[in-house]
Structures are given as C-alpha cells and as structure tokens.
C-alpha cells in the first residue's frame, strides 16, 4: 500500500471567486508598490488577509510550509537508494529497522548535528514513525509493501547455478527415460492441516447491529482424531491426480476407520 503523503489540500474557493491557481499566479504579478495591495489581492480572490499574505510571501504556496528536513537532500537520496537496494535481496527494512539505521547514521555525525537531531527527535537520536512517513512522502520512488517471509536456508540456496543444474538434470532425465508427454511427469508433496488452527485463523463475515466493537463467534471443539491430518497428493502435468493418501491421527497404525454408534 503506498504510504506517500497526500498533497496539501487546497482551500476551497468561495462562490464567484476566480478559483484556479493559475489565475492567482497571474494576479500575483499585479501585486507590488504600485499595483495591488495584499488586502486588494485578498478581496479580488476572496481569500482571507492571512491567506493572501501567506500566498504572496511564500512563493505561491497554498498550504503551510513544513519544517526544513533535518537531513540534506544528498543524505536523503543515499538513504532512499539504500532502501531500494536492500529490499530485492531479502533485506528490506521495516519502519523500526529503518529508524535504527537512521540513528546509527546520526550517531556518526558531528556533535553539533547530533545536538540538533536530539532537539528534533525528542531527546533521542532515533527518529520516530512520523519522521519516516514524511521522509517517504518526499520521495515518490519509495513505497511500503506488505511483506512475506522466506527462511534463511531457502534464500541462501536460491542460486542461479543450483536452479540451472536442476533444469539440466531434468533435461538429461527426460532424454534418458524418453519423457515425451505430460502424463509422464509427476510431482508429489504432503500438506498438513490442523483443524483447530484452520478454524481459528480463517475469517468469515457475520451480520450484526451497527456499533459492535468486537465481533466474535464461538467455535466448537474438534474431536481428538480430527485435530490434524497429512494429505499426500501426487499430480501429473497432464492435470491427473493420483488417489490421495491421507494420514490421520490414531494410536493403532493401519487403515483408518471410525466407530459407528
């Protein structure tokens, strides 16, 4: 989800007023010692005196100008580049981790800048979440992503040579065993399901009156044997599924049966 700040809202023009920004800019040229006064400008564009004064004095800025960023634009560019390079290699930073990186950087700065940083960040060298939000807003190239997890071992093994050697092995096997049709290629894997966890983690919608603060439903217990099971699926690339093989919980190993009462 993008976390960029929305641009400052432009005040709604009053009825009958020349409302485009361009018209105001054109009107600004008339402001001067021999032209329009601030008061006349405000009247003409139906703004308050304070708004007109702010507009004239702040280079046509409509919204309120924020505080000057603590880091220079070069420093911010380096930080942004660091974020962009870290994320594709599985080392993306969360907001808190990014704050820590910034605090490490700030601790390396001169004493004067550290004092200034402490003044800005409430006595600490670690910036807060709002600072990160504003920082992201300044750089349109950065955005926030919901992230998945990848085990370290999986990440480490994902090397081009390993992947290429897997396909080389498949090429050789396909040639050696004369694999020419999709019904000759199969894959097997097991998947485990825990009934209780599935029921608890799943989400469904219920109807209720307006104003419910904590909508919850009660789930029934699961019988001991239904707690969990493992299913082994074997499928072919032609779309055929071999008979499933399911392992359910039971003290006596063997074919699964249930007592009918």
């Amino acid at each position, binding site marked *: 989800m993008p976390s960029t700040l929305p641009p400052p809202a432009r005040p709604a023009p009053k009825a009958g007023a020349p409302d485009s920004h361009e018209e105001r800019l054109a009107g600004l040229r008339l402001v001067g010692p021999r032209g329009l006064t601030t008061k006349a400008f405000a009247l003409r564009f139906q703004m308050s005196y304070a708004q007109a004064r702010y507009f004239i004095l702040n280079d046509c800025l409509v919204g309120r100008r924020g505080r000057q960023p603590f880091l220079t634009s070069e420093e911010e560019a380096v930080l942004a580049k660091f974020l962009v390079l870290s994320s594709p290699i599985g080392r993306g930073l969360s907001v808190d981790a990014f704050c820590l990186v910034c605090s490490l950087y700030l601790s390396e700065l001169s004493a004067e800048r550290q004092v200034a940083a402490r003044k800005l960040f409430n006595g600490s060298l670690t910036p807060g979440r709002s600072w990160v939000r504003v920082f992201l807003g300044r750089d349109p190239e950065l955005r926030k992503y919901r992230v998945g997890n990848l085990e370290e071992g999986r990440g480490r093994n994902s090397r081009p040579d*390993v992947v290429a050697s897997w396909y*080389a092995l498949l090429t050789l096997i396909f040639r050696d065993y004369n694999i020419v049709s*999709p019904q000759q290629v199969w*894959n097997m894997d*097991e998947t485990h399901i825990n009934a209780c966890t599935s029921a608890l983690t799943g989400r469904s919608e219920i109807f209720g009156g307006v104003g419910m603060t904590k909508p919850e439903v009660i*789930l029934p217990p699961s019988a001991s044997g239904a707690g969990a*099971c493992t299913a082994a*699926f074997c499928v072919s690339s032609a779309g055929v599924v071999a008979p*499933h093989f399911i392992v359910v919980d039971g003290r006596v190993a063997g074919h699964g049966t249930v007592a009918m009462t």
Partner: protein
Amino acid sequence: MEYEALAAYLNDGVVVWRRSPPGFDTAVLDVWAEVLAQFACSYFPEEAKILSIDGAKVHHLPSGLLTLLRAKVHVVAEPSRMSHFLQALDNKSAFGRYQPDLRSRVRESALKFRDGGRPLNTPDLMRCIAAAAPDALTVDALKMAFRRVGMWPLDPKVVSLETLRKGADAPVMGINLEFLTQQLILAVHKDMSCPLIVNGTLSTAGRGAVLTAPEILGALEGEMDPKKAGMYAKAAGKRAREAKAQEKQLKAADPARAKRSKAKVAEGA
C-alpha cells in the same frame, strides 16, 4: 459396534492411514509407495514416469523407491530448500488454491456444528478434503502449476531473477538461465550418478538427485545398514532388560511361595 472405513468419505482409491502423530515415516512411506505403484501400473503402464519429490529424508527409503521403480516410476529429489519455487504442488496454482479452500471449509463446518452442539470429527475433516481437493486441483490449475515452475514444458526461463536475488549478498544481474542450463548439462551428467553423502546421509543440498538410480539406491541401502544395526541393538537391549526384570520377579516370588507353603503346613499341623 460397527466400524466404517474413513476412505469411504473420499473419492475412489483414496487410502486413509492412521498413525500418531499424523505424518509420514518410513512405514507409512512404504504403504504410500505401494498405493502409487499400483496406480502407476494401471495408468499408461508401458510408459516410464518421472516423479519429483522434495528432499525430505523420509523420502529416501530404498524399499519404497524400489517399489516405485518396479512400476517404472523414476524418482527425482529436488535440491533441498528450493521446493518453494521448483515444486509444482507448492505453487500458488496448486496448494496455493487448495489450502485456503480447505481452511475455509473447515471453518464453515465448525460454525455449522456449533449450533448442533457437536464437535468437528474426523469424517467431517475427510468431507472437507473430499470437497476442497477436486475444486482446487483442477486440470487447468495443475497444468498451470507445472508451467509456472518450468517443469512441463521444460523451461528454466520461468524462474525470475527477482527470485534468485533473495538471499544473495549482491543483486543478481544479467543471468541467462537457459544458457547456464545448457552449459551445466555435461557437469550434471557426470555428477548425477555420484551420490553425495554428508554426515552419513544422502545430501541434496544445492543439487537434485535421481533417487532410483542404481548408485544412489546402493548408497541409500548402505546408509540404512548402520541404522538397522542400531535398531536391532536397541531391540536386543530392550529384550535383555525385560528378561532381567522377569528373572527378578521370579526371584522375589520364590521366598514368598516358600513362606506361603510354610504357613499352610503350620495351619495343617
């Protein structure tokens, strides 16, 4: 009391096995291999088949592999810890559809039984699986899953560079996987018949392996021998302990018996 097979709640040919905890071990894998071999013999029996599985150690069972080999099923183990993008079933077109479907069915069933005041039991779980599997693992979805991992049609280009960048110390740039695959064929041909044994077990770290190749089967059987010896030693130890305990019981019983007979004699006198 009557007993009903759990497999009856599912489609034809399904096997439901009981074990605690409910997962695979060597004994269960043997049963699974027999079931699959039976199916393979009935489905295009003249054609050889390739079966790719992940590198879990429980799959390295020589007896199960031999059963599959007799049914012309050649088993290939994927490089370890890479099934997330090399395995068709792990793809979002296969388990990525099945698991959420099953979860939502389990939850719906649980909510339905709440009002009836009865718990969710094993047949209900079987019904959920029976409904979710055909819905999720459709012909088109499975074809797409194999295409997405580049297994059929064989296509290394489907693996994106973005995937390969994960875990790399520096961004991976400008790699042509198709070209690299062609370059590696000779090296892989030399390696594929050489089992790599690490810490006494077959390793699939960083490389795939044809588990049903004679050299690898031989290595797996050799690997099994010390394990079997350990199992036998354990069983022998258990038997010895039981015999000792029985002897001790007999020894303790002798004075008691003598005492009882003495008491009887005294009573008779």
